[in-house]
């Protein structure tokens, strides 16, 4: 059952990246929905739950978007250590803030990799242009999708932490939605 749910989640995240994300750009930058999904998974369940999802989502998104597979995997992989670091710290408003910080850090890493690949492929850009038109609006778009999805998930779960991820009671308390 979990495998089917994981497969469906991967397909949905990849398909959403090439259909939903371009419909809601923020200052021209699209959100990276599979990364948002990984951050949500890390927040609601645990970092361990993202270990299989992240490479599968990276490969699936690369396939539907025509991106380089290896680049996509390396780019998305950053979300796991970012979530792990966030998990070690105490966050003022609950664990969701840590997951959001991890998402922004991983998004920046992934976008910088895409910029480097585009520059190697002949693109001509300035650091200021990358910051103003890719990194900042990209992070804002990711954060907006994360916040919207977190609100929906919070409402669905009745403001309770999910019992499915294997995280202990103490952890679930720390990660509680405010």
């Amino acid at each position, binding site marked *: 059952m979990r495998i089917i749910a994981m497969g469906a989640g991967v397909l949905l995240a990849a398909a959403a990246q090439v259909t939903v994300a371009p419909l809601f750009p923020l200052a021209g930058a699209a959100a990276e929905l599979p990364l948002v999904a990984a951050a949500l998974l890390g927040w609601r369940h645990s970092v361990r739950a993202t270990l299989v999802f992240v490479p599968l989502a990276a490969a699936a998104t690369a396939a539907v978007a025509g991106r380089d597979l290896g680049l996509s995997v390396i780019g998305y992989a950053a979300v796991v250590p970012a979530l792990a670091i966030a998990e070690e710290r105490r966050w003022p408003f609950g664990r969701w803030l840590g997951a959001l910080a991890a998402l922004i850090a991983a998004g920046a890493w992934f976008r910088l990799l895409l910029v480097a690949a585009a520059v190697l492929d002949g693109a001509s850009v300035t650091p200021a242009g*990358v910051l103003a038109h890719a990194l900042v609006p990209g992070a804002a778009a990711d954060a907006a999708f994360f916040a919207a999805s977190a609100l929906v998930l919070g409402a669905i779960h009745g403001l309770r932490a999910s019992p499915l991820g294997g995280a202990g009671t103490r952890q679930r308390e720390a990660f509680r939605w405010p």
Partner: protein
Amino acid sequence: MVAVARYRWWLATMAGLALVLTIAGRVGVLTPFHGAFLWLASPIEEGLRTIFSPVAAVLSDIGELRRLQEENQQLRLENESLKAQVAELRQDTSRLRELESALGVVQSGADQRLVAANVLARDASVLTHTVVIDRGTADGIREGMVVLSPSGSLVGKVTRALAQQSFVRLIDDSRSVVAVRIQETGIDGSLHAEANRQLKVDLARGEVAAGNTVITSGLGGEYPPGLPVGKVVDVSGTPQEMFRTVRVEPFAQLAAVQTLLVLTSFVPPSLAGN
């Protein structure tokens, strides 16, 4: 950092996986799986598009109501002017046909072959803008072929062709470079996109003004000459300056285009032998 150390094995696995996938992708081992996966994902993409497109359209309309009203007014005026031009052109065409018939000239555009395609998916991530279309090598599409909008203006180029689908790199992808010409003055330049997807032309010295039409020059052989690309919207600097900033608005609605035409009768000379 203890938590990161816990996942060191996983990161090493990911690095290895990335290397293997990159090599496999370059060799072409994954191509059959790629086509199958796109086929599997297309109904989900279609479903998501059906659900979210109206939502995005409503949000976009609310945010741009004022601009749309102004644009509507402008388009009405433009429409009137174009109607007058159409009437004039009809007269010219009729006269031209008479003259061609008298001289025995054959229409040069008659051998132009186009394949219509629908946009299945779009990736508008950092500096890139590619779309997936529902036509592939089975429909005669090959890498390097030029892609046009339904009205015939330049949209991009096929970068990868699978059996049933193809990937198209649009002209506002920062990796795209198009050899262009200012139609009114004949000055050649190269068109490329900036990080914010605005199109810019690097020109040799010469006269250029807002409102001028940008067409493909055909230099380099990557695109056929004479394809409409866009309109100059802003020029900064004087004709004597070495580097002038010429901003161009594409004729095609690149962010929203849903139907495309692939010019199958043109293959760049650099790829013709493949």
